[in-house]
């Protein structure tokens, strides 16, 4: 018997209250193959595998493992059957070493751990693996790619026969993603494991999957052998309508003078990570400068300094020719706007209403830009109504707390607020995290429209494809400094990836 198992879902239905998350889904994953579950956010991919792994109980239908019907009521049942999952959010303990994490993941751990024996066993296990991570390293100090490898090693260490990968490449550089998926496919084709990849990236399906099933709104809407299905077909299945790939229109070129100029900017290091040290960074009107980099290389700090959330330790930030300290008055006078990552946390007051949140930039100024002490509730409501209408925000009401809105709608709200009026400089950080295909296209079009209207845009993103699509110029950050700069036209993703890893 090969270790890899086949998995078959028959008529799986799952309801949450009145909402049907999965309806009558059937699919078959052949042993020792790579099967992609493709779909937008909210299509039901995660719900389906959570049913398979015992986190949810399906209301109807059953799972067949190696042809036998199995009851999977709890995660422990999935463990017993050798079904394992690598989560999008890692479940390793950051302060523990790789070895400690691996040993503690076992179902049975002796009361007193004999580290000499365990280490010897782990080392001989590691020697058989196609890839390696340092056993003694603290997980918190590993790069995202290494952590992901550790998660996969953990599953192999637990002798899984089916491995589910949930959006495995969302935190990896192109090289890391390529390497990791190649390894996983190799493992599958060698017969040691069956792999199921949850993804919304068509490229990954085409490159690495043997078969694909497309989910849309809780239904299996199509699928087949991956090489028989072209990208437009898959996209049409995913979003339910044929969609012409929108090419963003780029009008006009960058102006001469710098709208944003950063010189010798430094911040304090934190918990062993180096701080920022940026010698020179400039953004011009009618230009999008993309900041590429692996998460945790100073992009967050840069966005925080420019948005006023972090004090620099040295250097200067100049906006429109004058020194800029990110005070509210300066931001209002020079039109500096920020679309931060995790906008609900960094750009909203979750318990205040949608109306109030939409007015956070402007509630203390009147039409002429003079400070006002009494709020003009009618003007605020009117402005909110206008923004909600033009950005298609779906909210239960304008007076609902913004915290109850979905991620996409919060993003629309913050974007509407930040792009309202004259915008001189726009700082954007990971604007499309967790949005579906339509919302992504919309957000990118808005950013491009702002650029075309003369805004200088600094786009900080961990999604290299997004940067390649939007940016006029690309800089790469590694360990807090800018290590590479290139025009976006004709930029080589592989070369940029190498700079992102600091291995150039």
């Amino acid at each position, binding site marked *: 018997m090969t270790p890899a198992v086949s998995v078959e879902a028959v008529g799986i239905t799952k309801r949450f209250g009145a909402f049907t998350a999965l309806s009558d889904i059937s699919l078959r994953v052949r042993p020792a193959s790579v099967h992609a579950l493709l779909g937008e956010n909210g299509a039901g991919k995660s719900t389906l595998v959570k049913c398979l792994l015992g986190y949810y109980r399906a209301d109807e239908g059953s799972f067949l493992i190696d042809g036998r019907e199995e009851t999977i009521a709890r995660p422990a049942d999935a463990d017993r059957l050798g079904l394992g999952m690598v989560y999008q959010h890692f479940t390793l303990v*950051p*302060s523990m070493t790789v070895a*400690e994490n691996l040993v*503690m993941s076992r179902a049975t751990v002796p009361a007193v751990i004999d580290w000499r024996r365990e280490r010897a066993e782990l080392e001989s296990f590691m020697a058989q693996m196609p890839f390696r991570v340092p056993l003694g390293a603290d997980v918190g100090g590993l790069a995202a790619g290494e952590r992901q490898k550790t998660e996969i090693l953990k599953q192999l260490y637990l002798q899984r026969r089916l491995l589910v990968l949930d959006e495995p490449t969302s935190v990896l550089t192109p090289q890391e993603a390529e390497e990791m998926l190649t390894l996983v496919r190799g493992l599958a084709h060698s017969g040691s494991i069956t792999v199921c990849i949850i993804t919304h990236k068509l490229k990954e399906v085409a490159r690495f999957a043997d078969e694909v099933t497309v989910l849309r709104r809780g239904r299996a809407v199509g699928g087949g052998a991956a090489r028989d299905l072209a990208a437009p077909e898959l996209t049409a299945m995913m979003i339910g309508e044929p969609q012409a790939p929108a090419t963003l229109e780029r009008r006009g070129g960058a102006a001469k003078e710098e709208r944003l100029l950063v010189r010798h900017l430094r911040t304090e290091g934190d918990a062993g990570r180096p701080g920022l040290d940026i010698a020179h960074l400039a953004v011009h009107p009618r230009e999008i400068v993309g900041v590429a980099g692996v998460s945790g290389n100073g992009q967050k700090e840069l966005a925080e300094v420019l948005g006023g959330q972090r004090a620099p330790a040295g250097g200067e930030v100049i906006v429109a020719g004058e020194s800029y300290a990110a005070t509210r008055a300066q931001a209002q006078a020079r039109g500096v706007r920020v679309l931060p990552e995790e906008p609900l946390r960094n750009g909203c007051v979750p318990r205040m209403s949608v109306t109030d949140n939409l007015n956070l930039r402007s509630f203390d100024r009147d039409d002429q830009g003079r400070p006002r002490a009494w709020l003009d509730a009618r003007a605020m409501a009117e402005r909110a109504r206008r923004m909600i209408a033009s950005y298609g925000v779906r909210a239960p009401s304008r007076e609902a707390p913004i915290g109850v809105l979905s991620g996409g709608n919060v993003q629309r709200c913050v974007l509407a607020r930040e792009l309202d009026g004259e915008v001189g400089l726009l700082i954007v950080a990971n604007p499309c995290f967790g949005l579906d295909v339509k919302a992504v296209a919309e957000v990118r079009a808005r950013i491009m429209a702002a650029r075309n209207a003369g805004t200088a845009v600094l786009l900080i993103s961990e999604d290299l494809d997004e940067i390649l699509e939007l940016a006029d110029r690309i800089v790469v950050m590694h360990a807090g400094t800018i290590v590479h700069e290139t025009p976006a036209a004709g930029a080589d993703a592989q070369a940029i990836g190498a700079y992102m890893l600091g291995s150039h």
Partner: protein
Amino acid sequence: MAPAETVTVAMVAGALRVSTPFLFVSLGECLTERSGRINLGNEGVLVLGAMVGYATSYQTGNPWLGVVSAALAGALLGAAHGGICSLARVNDVAMGIAIMLAGTGIAFFFGKPYVQPSAPQLPRIPLGFWAIESQVRSALEVSPLFFIGLAAAFAMDWFFRATRMGLRVRIVGDSADAARALGLSIHRVRLLATAAGSALAGIGGSFLSLSYPGSWNEGLSSGQGLMAVALVVFARWNPVHCVIAALIFGASGALGPSLQTIGITKGYYLFYGTPYVVTLLILAVTIRPGKALRGMPGELSIGR
């Protein structure tokens, strides 16, 4: 002896004595915080432990029974803290203050009759038997509890590194997500860690009433239980470092009394304040805004 030597001897002696309650409370706090919870109630546990230990020693004539009952009383109060904090929407800092007040209140209420009588004290180990000067000899009379605390620190370090329970405490304290994925019961681990931590704090309390100063009254503790929280931060949640931190706190606490031994009486109240100044300095130096503390458990509510 020269005044400088006298002060040094007095400070070493003071460090060994005064550090013991710091050591036990900080080890207890360290254990609790590594599980991801703060227990400010250990100040109350300390006072309750002192009272229960003293009363038990007086009633039974056996000071070691006093130590054991102080640990049990601490465990009970800690379990109360742990249990209540497991409920939804209970803040562990606010709850800790309630437990602190409850602990001291209970101790004062039941401790009234024991202020006057004198209870049998714990023995001391005469490590200074070789010395000629009586000052040195009395200075080096060390309580066995100090060595038990020392052993407990190293045992706890080993516990965190090489036992299943210890690693579980660390997992729960550092990443609730990982703990859930591994199927650990977060509430149970934290409850046990809080109860065990408070048992240690209770032992620290029994030292106050059964060894040094060696009597029970309502002004016995002067905030050692709260200072232990700062001490754990200084020790970076490492039990072995807690020993060093406790000795530094102990020595600074002994500065006032030592200066008195050579006749410096002017403004010695100021020197009595040294441990508090040290606490403030340590907090000011080690906690800087915008920085995560190295070694801090990820689930600790002051870190979120």
